[in-house]
């Protein structure tokens, strides 16, 4: 059995899953220290499992690390080291960071020799003495964590690795993050992502250790996994080194959990809350990724993040008659006090849904004076707006199943243009925790290959092998690993042979021996 846990801003939810079956679920308030709330959930579920069964693994999705960034709390004094000279100097590391975040980690930046061209040639060789001097300098400045970013390390990561060895030998206690292990092409964005990771490794190590210790003291000696942004898992030792991969796991887990509860792999997931409607698209069970740069705590990065589309429409959205408006203002969580059906005085989308007869909440007698044709027009407009979100999320004009979750989903009827099916799963309140519990492990590669010395099929094979190896390293059962996504993009304006390949492999977790 697996325990899946989701640590949200308000609640820590947990589920006990026996394969595909939900055995038990629990909600506890999220605690300040995060860990005690997690432990309370684990202990309850561990106690409630049937006698002849045992827990095989605990899967955790958490927003703890992104909160550390947002609050500029517990961040390690960190340095960004770029291997690039004499190229790529005009925009130094951290150039586009918010100044308060930069200040909170010390703002140390260095540029040194090294890095590669797009076709794998060196820009310049690594200079060992230069790096030793930088290591000593960083140490003297109190830096405890460093990100190393080589130009085109997505083509060749050897310089980043050599630089890491040199720094490690000079300053053995330094935490090191390599950009080639974090992001994809785009030096500024990848370097930024590596730097966010660098400043989070201390708090990550602390958190992981605390949870592991608490699990051990509860007699639960099983592997601990963390959910990643892309919907796959990583072992806790990896999470301690790569906390940045967890920061968008929330929406991903929620979408995957909702789809799982509905029994679909390809679907549009629509979550209608009190203030907003958020939607995402799952393709073969994984979220469609955003293609533009993603802002994390004010820093531009190029992580693989789920593409989430939001509009200001929810159960608490205020309805105005003249001029006619739905939202964007909302009473939010105060709906149960301010909404007319609940005895309040503000006309909300929920009141309209009750007046029109599609929803049954609160006291319907309080909305009998709402003009029925106005109610109907408003409901039709809400339906149309949600339909529009669905359409923007789809990848083609083919109809797809639509999964509706969230308290505000009572606002919409079961008929959408372009939807093959409308699903409203039960237990959607713990979709995030379920999404964590059912996750597989994966490996992703995105690199530019020069085809002067190798064929296209050879490049593809190399990329595939690397993705599969990454999935095995992450704890995957080699027999179950399959390639789920391949994309090839030749480089434009470059009539020589260079190809960008993007591959993703996923597989089931190894069974414990």
């Amino acid at each position: 059995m697996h325990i899946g846990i989701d640590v949200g801003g308000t609640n820590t939810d947990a589920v006990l899953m026996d394969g595909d079956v939900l055995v038990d679920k629990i909600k506890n308030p999220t605690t300040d220290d995060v860990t005690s709330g997690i432990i309370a959930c684990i202990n309850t579920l561990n106690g409630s499992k049937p006698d002849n069964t045992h827990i095989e693994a605990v899967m955790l999705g958490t927003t703890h690390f992104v909160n550390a960034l947002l609050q500029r709390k517990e961040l390690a004094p960190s340095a960004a080291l770029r291997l690039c000279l004499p190229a790529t100097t005009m925009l130094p590391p951290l150039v586009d960071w918010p100044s308060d975040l930069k200040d909170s980690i010390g703002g140390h930046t260095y540029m040194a020799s090294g890095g590669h061209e797009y076709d794998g040639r060196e820009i310049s060789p690594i200079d060992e003495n230069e790096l030793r001097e930088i290591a000593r300098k960083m140490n003297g400045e109190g830096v405890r964590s460093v990100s190393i970013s080589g130009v085109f390390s997505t083509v060749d990561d050897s310089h980043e690795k050599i630089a890491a060895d040199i720094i490690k030998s000079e300053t053995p206690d330094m935490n090191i993050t390599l950009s080639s292990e974090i992001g994809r092409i785009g030096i500024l964005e990848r370097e930024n992502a590596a730097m966010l990771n660098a400043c989070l490794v201390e708090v990550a190590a602390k958190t992981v250790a605390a949870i592991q210790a608490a699990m051990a003291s509860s007699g639960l000696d099983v592997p601990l996994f963390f959910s990643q942004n892309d919907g796959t898992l990583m072992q806790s030792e990896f999470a301690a080194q790569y906390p940045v991969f967890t920061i968008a796991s929330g929406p991903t887990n929620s979408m995957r959990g909702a789809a799982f509860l509905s029994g679909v792999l390809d679907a549009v997931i629509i979550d209608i809350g009190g203030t907003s409607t958020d939607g995402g698209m799952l393709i073969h069970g994984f979220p469609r990724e955003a293609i533009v740069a993603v802002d994390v705590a004010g820093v531009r990065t190029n992580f693989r993040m789920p593409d989430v589309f939001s509009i200001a429409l929810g159960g608490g959205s205020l309805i105005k008659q003249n001029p006619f408006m739905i939202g964007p203002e909302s009473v939010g969580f105060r709906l149960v006090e301010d909404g007319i059906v609940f005895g309040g005085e503000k006309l909300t989308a929920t009141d309209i849904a009750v007046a029109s007869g599609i929803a049954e909440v609160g006291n319907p007698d309080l909305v009998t004076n709402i003009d029925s044709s106005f109610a109907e027009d408003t409901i039709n407009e809400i339906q149309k707006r949600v339909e529009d979100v669905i359409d923007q999320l789809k990848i083609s004009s083919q109809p797809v199943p639509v999964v509706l979750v969230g308290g505000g989903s009572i606002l919409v009827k079961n008929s959408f243009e372009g939807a093959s099916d409308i699903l409203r799963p039960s237990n959607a309140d713990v979709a995030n925790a379920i999404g964590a519990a059912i996750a597989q492990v994966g490996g992703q590669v995105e690199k530019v290959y020069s085809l002067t010395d190798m064929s296209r099929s050879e490049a593809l094979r190399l990329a595939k092998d690397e993705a599969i190896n990454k999935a095995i390293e992450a704890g995957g059962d080699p027999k179950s690993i399959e390639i789920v996504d391949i994309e090839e993009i030749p480089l434009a304006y470059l009539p020589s042979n260079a190809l960008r390949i993007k591959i993703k492999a996923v597989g089931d977790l190894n069974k414990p021996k």
Partner: protein
Amino acid sequence: MIYMWNVSEDDLESIAIGAGILGTGGGGNPYIGMLRAKQLIRKNGPVQVLSPEELDENDLIVCVGGIGAPTVGIEKVRDKQSYYALKAIEDFTGKKATAIISNEIGGSNSVEPLIPASLAGLPVVDADGMGRAFPEVQMKTFFVYGIPPYPMAVCDEKGNTALITEALDGKWVERMARAVTIQMGAVACYALAPMSAHQIQTTAVLNTLSLAKNLGHAVRVARTANEDPIQALLKVHAGKVLFQGKIIDVDRQTTAGFARGQVVIEGMNKYESDKLTIEFQNENLIARLNSEIICIVPDLICIVDTERGEPITTELLRYGFRVTVLGFPAPELWKTPEGLATAGPAAFGYDVEYEDLQLM
């Protein structure tokens, strides 16, 4: 009217949007170029912009631009290559430049002249050699109207310089410069043929930096005021809405350095029952309403996000986007027989006649 302005950090935000629109789907994203120019302007102060009419007979204007693959440029970010190229041309000709002009206002090359201008303390001229984006070096109005495409200096960031001192024509310059660029690591810059005030006034597309700034500014103002960015754009630059709808199909293949393909847009609102197909080769080249051509290169076909007025480059096109397709007339210099021979439909392999957008 004679006037002058300075490029401020805030102007760069506007120029990036406007240059993206004039990029007609290609030209590379101006974001990184904007950051580079910002760094320099912050340090050295605003860059002065000269109206082409302000130039006098003593002026010597050098054209600069970036050459290479935009995808490589986001990894190995350009440094001072265009400044080195400017210096190389000055050394070779033995004459000092008094102002810089952009080769291409569409996309990332719109801001490239600001780098050498800031470093050398020179003004930029409010004009360029295309009035839009085109994929190859020879596709500049200067060369169509008799300016020789050499001498040309191509520089990398390491200190390498290649000089092209003579060539049969612009296409040869393109071939040689492209080959050198690949060896230099695919993000080089070049400087070209110093020109006189009169040559700029007669062979360049005029007032295009102002145009890019004004287009971008209009979009930003409209967004803040919750007004329609499309109407705001059309108030700045005379053009027309060709179509409005949502993208229902994108088909792309990349061959020999060109992102070729087509995008199909299904009509919305007053275009409800129609379909628009746009064929692109890095830039958008032909727009067909149902099967009839309604806009064709060198006229500008610009795809923007209907709600935000944000330009959408060909690599970002995908199903579901709500877009408005705008047509802007090409600069007159492109519409002559000589202009069309260099950058008309035939130059891109289309066996169709150019039809003037303004007459359609």
